[in-house]
Structures are given as C-alpha cells and as structure tokens.
C-alpha cells in the first residue's frame, strides 16, 4: 500500500476519507518489527511538528496572560501605549501595520501581476529564465538587507519626494505630515512592496503558466488580440491562484519585521498622513522587547505578538482554503 500518494492531494471527500482509513488499517497491520518501529518513529517526529505548533500558541498565550487579564480585548481598541503609566493599547500599531501592508499591496499587485503576465506570455520560452530567475533571487534576499538599503538609499529619496509633495500638495490630508523624517508610512509601504513584488510575481507566473494553451488559442481564433485573450480568458481562468498569491504576499507584508523596523518609523500615534512615522506590530515588538523593564510591559508586547500571529494565521488559512478550492476547481474543469 505504499504507492498512493495522490490521496493526500485529494479534497477531503467523505468517500476518500473512508478509503484512506482502510489504508491506515493496512499500514497499522504491520507484521514486521522493523516496520513497526519505523512507523512509530516517523509518527513521533510528525507529532513533534504538531507539538511545536501547539507549544507556539500555548507559549504566546502564557506569555501574554498577564496583559490579557489586565486589559482583555480592550487592548485591541486601546489607543494609549504608555509604559510609564502602565497603560497599554495597540490599536495604532494594528492600524499602522494594516495601512502599510495595504499600501504595499496596492503598489505591488499591478507591478507583480503585470510582470508575471509579461514573463508568461510575452517572453519566448528560452529567455524566460533570464528574467524570472533574478526575480526569484530577489525573493531570497534577507529582509535585513532590504532594511539597510531602504534606510540608506531609499529613505533619502523618499524624504526628497515627501518634502516636495508637502510643499505643493500639503493641503491634501494624506500629504499633511512630518515630511522631513523620510522614515514613515510611505517608506515602510514602499520597502514592503519591493519585498513582496518578487514573491507575488514568482507565484503568479507559475499559476499563469498552467493556463491551458487551448483556452488562449480559443480566444485568438475568435479574432481576439493577445491582450484580450489574456484579460478575458487567462486572468479569469487563473484568478483563484492569483488571489492566493496576493494573499501570501499580504501575509508576508504584515509579518515582515526588520525592514519595517528600520524605515517604517516608531511612534505610537494613530496614522493621519502618509508621512507619519508610526510603528507596525512587528517593529514595535522588535524595538521595545529588550527594553521592557517589568513583566506587564513584556506581557503586553507578547500580546501584540499574539495578535500579529492571529492575523497572519487567518491570512495563511485563507490562502490554504484558496489552494484547496483551486485543486477542487481543477477536478471540475478537467472532468
């Protein structure tokens, strides 16, 4: 019964679960002592992974318990973060995180989907790696390097742009902020966008390459232009996977720490303009954790970590759900 790996890929249908239960029975009915030991060992290691995951959640709850008892869910809507007064609320950082991640997505989606389409449909097959491999490399660059580059190269440029924008369009609320820092929401969003563009591009390209030629050719044969075939056929065909790619990018943008810590700013105020240097959840933990002097402070920071974890898990589950739907959808299309 070793060769049925495809069972794993199947959606969790009722009948399939039955069939695989039989497989378990078969596997468990091990005659050979070696096989029995092997089964138990690998099972133990698999349980290890599960245990680590549960331990992670348990530890986050244990670490933040003091803050949870003290502030409860009001922590999420509290706008004061005052270590001296022992008063903690994390709404501004949650908003700061979401605002930066959203702007990053707005910047990244058109650029990365555009690049993916160009690579998949406009570049000859032989030349594809020449463009797409470097983009994959960009995805592998450590975030600390993005942070360093952002701090010393990008922030001065953004500061220049911000000062100009404020001088000419300062009446517009988004540009009515402290422009001279350079560090802030705009810088944080741009560096996040640069970091997630290669991720979204690489996944989208893989997905677009799975669009059947017959689909594209059908549109061409109807007298459609290449762009019409892409826009009306290929992109809709791949839409679920593309949304999945974007969600993975969003997850990365929300959880990203170092680069945002370095260029995103570190104040606790609510965001008012694009130039405000406000904390993200990750950057707040990173910059204050080792300076937290009493246990409620530490506990509050871990609470922030728990919230961050919760948000990324929801996003991750969403992406998994889409992938699951995608595999289900494929069955329907090729039946």
């Amino acid at each position, binding site marked *: 019964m070793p060769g049925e790996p495809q069972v794993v890929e199947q959606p969790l249908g009722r009948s399939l679960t039955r069939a695989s239960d039989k497989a378990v029975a078969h596997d468990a009915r091990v005659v050979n002592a070696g096989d029995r030991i092997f089964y138990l060992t690998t099972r133990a290691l698999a349980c290890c992974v599960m245990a680590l995951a549960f331990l992670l959640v348990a530890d986050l709850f244990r670490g933040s318990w003091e803050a949870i008892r003290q502030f409860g869910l009001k922590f999420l809507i509290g706008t004061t973060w005052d270590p001296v007064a022992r008063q903690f609320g994390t709404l501004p950082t949650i908003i700061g995180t979401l605002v930066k991640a959203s702007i990053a997505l707005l910047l990244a989606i058109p650029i990365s989907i555009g690049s993916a389409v160009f690579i998949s449909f406009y570049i000859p097959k032989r030349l594809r790696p020449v463009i797409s491999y470097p983009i994959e490399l960009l995805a592998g660059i450590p975030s600390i390097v993005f942070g360093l580059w952002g701090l010393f190269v990008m922030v001065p440029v953004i500061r220049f742009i911000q000062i100009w924008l404020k001088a000419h369009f300062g009446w517009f609320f988004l540009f009515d902020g402290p422009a001279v820092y350079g560090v802030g929401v705009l810088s944080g969003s741009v560096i996040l966008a640069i970091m997630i563009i290669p991720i979204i591009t690489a996944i989208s390209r893989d997905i677009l390459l799975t669009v059947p030629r017959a*689909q594209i050719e059908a549109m*061409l*044969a*109807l007298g*459609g232009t290449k762009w019409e075939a892409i826009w009306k*056929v290929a992109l809709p065909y791949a839409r679920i996977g593309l949304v999945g790619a974007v969600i993975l990018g969003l997850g990365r943008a929300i959880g990203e720490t170092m680069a945002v810590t370095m260029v995103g700013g570190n104040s606790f105020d609510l965001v008012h303009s694009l130039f405000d240097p406000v904390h993200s959840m990750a950057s707040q933990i990173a910059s204050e954790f080792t300076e937290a002097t009493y246990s409620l402070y530490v506990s509050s920071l871990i609470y922030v970590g728990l919230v961050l974890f919760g948000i990324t898990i929801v996003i991750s589950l969403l992406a998994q759900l889409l992938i699951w739907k995608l595999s289900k959808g494929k069955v329907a299309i090729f039946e």
Partner: protein
Amino acid sequence: MSNENYASAEKRGGEELRAPARASETASNKARLEIHGLSAYYGKTRAVSNVSLSIQTKRVTAIIGPSGCGKSTFIRCLNRMHEVTPGALVEGRVLLDGEDLYGPGVDPVEVRRKVGMVFQKPNPFPTMSIYDNVVAGFKLNGSRDRRVIDGKVEESLKMAALWEEVKDALYKPGTSLSGGQQQRLCIARALAVDPEVLLMDEPCSALDPIATAKIEELIHELKETVTIVIVTHNMQQAARVSDYTAFFYMGELVEFGVTSKIFTNPEKHQTEDYITGRFG
C-alpha cells in the same frame, strides 16, 4: 458508411463534378480560399510542404491522412493560428476572396475573425456562462446593445443546434454541459463572429458516437451559410460529411478532388492504399 449517404454526397457534388482537382485550374470566383505553395515549419522541421488547393464556397472540404501528416498544421495556417506556436513559420500564400492573408499589413486578428476555428477538444471558457461563451468573440467587435447580443446568442445557438437544450440554462457555466454540447457551444461561439470560413480540427475526436452524429448533422446544415474545412482521421466521417476531400501524406498533398471520386476511384496509388486501410 451507408450507401444512401454516399449517393447523396455524389448528388450534392453533382454540379461540381467537373471541378478540377488542382487549385491552379479552379475558377477563382467559386473558390473562397485559395492556397498557393503553402509550407509550414516548426523550427527547422517542415510539417507541410508546398501545398496548393482551393476551398469552394459553401462546401465542406475534408482533410484526411494518417496522424502526423500535417493536416492539423495545414488548417492552422488557414487562419494564421500556426504562427501562435513558438518557432513556427509559414511560407506561401493563402487567398481569402482574392486577398492574401499573409500579405503585408494584414492583421492576424482580423484574419481570425473571418476564418473561425473549432478545436479538437471542446474548450469553452470555464469562467464564463453559456451566454457569455457564445458572445465572447462577438462582443469584441460587435454591438454592445443588450438586445442585439441576446439575439446573437439565440441565433448562434440555434445555428449550432444547441438552443433547445440550453435555452433555460443560459447562465450556467459552459463547462456544465456534456462533451458533445460543449463542442456545439464552441461551434456557436465561432459562428457568432460571422466567419466566412469555419475550420474544424478533428472536432469529434473527443466525442462519443451519438455526439459525433449530431455534429456531423450540424455540419450538413451549416454549409448553407459557411464554407467548412474539416480535418478528420476518420475516413467514414470524411465520406459522410464532405463534398471535397484532400488526402495528405508526409506533409504533402497527395490527392484532392470530389469526395465520391476520392473514395471510389482515387487516382493515386497511395490514396487507394490509405482508403483501403493498407497503411495508416
């Protein structure tokens, strides 16, 4: 193949019986498509070499031959779909009503509007409803008036003999239909653009016999309005549906003529071998 079918094919072809077998001798006012010295390549491999023939207006022309003989490549050249494949190349001329499809400044997009195509496997767009599938091509150029589009959907589905089966389910996905219905949906989609020529690349190869019979019946009706070129590996099918038949072998056109003649009294020895099942 029944005798009746055979006889009727002969009768239909009656007035054209004297139609010469070679394109060069054909009167051009009767030919919708004229192909002169057409060769097609994949990279350096030549799939079609130096083919000349003419396709008669509102008749069905079948292309037969063993697999790999270049018949599919040949019809993909007739609406410039061949060049969509990377590394593909075409030489020669294809005249649609006297105009070279490969002439300078001719846009393949416009060519494909005039010369429609139905593929081997039904390929309705899975993200679109039946309704949207039918007018996917029409909407690119045609009217945007809802009533005009509604009319077009009904007209095309009726032409493709699908209307009665789907008129109450127009907004279901195109992929919810059976294989044969999907293929007729693809035919409706191609007809909605009002092509002058309809190319069919083995349209029944993925279908069961009943669905195949329906498509063949449809082809009979369609030739009232459009010129049809059909590629098939099924000789009985070619004999049943076509007025003219071209036999391809190893990328070359071996013989072209009235279907009844090709199947009863072929001139070339190779054609006879193929028809009688001695190879292929």
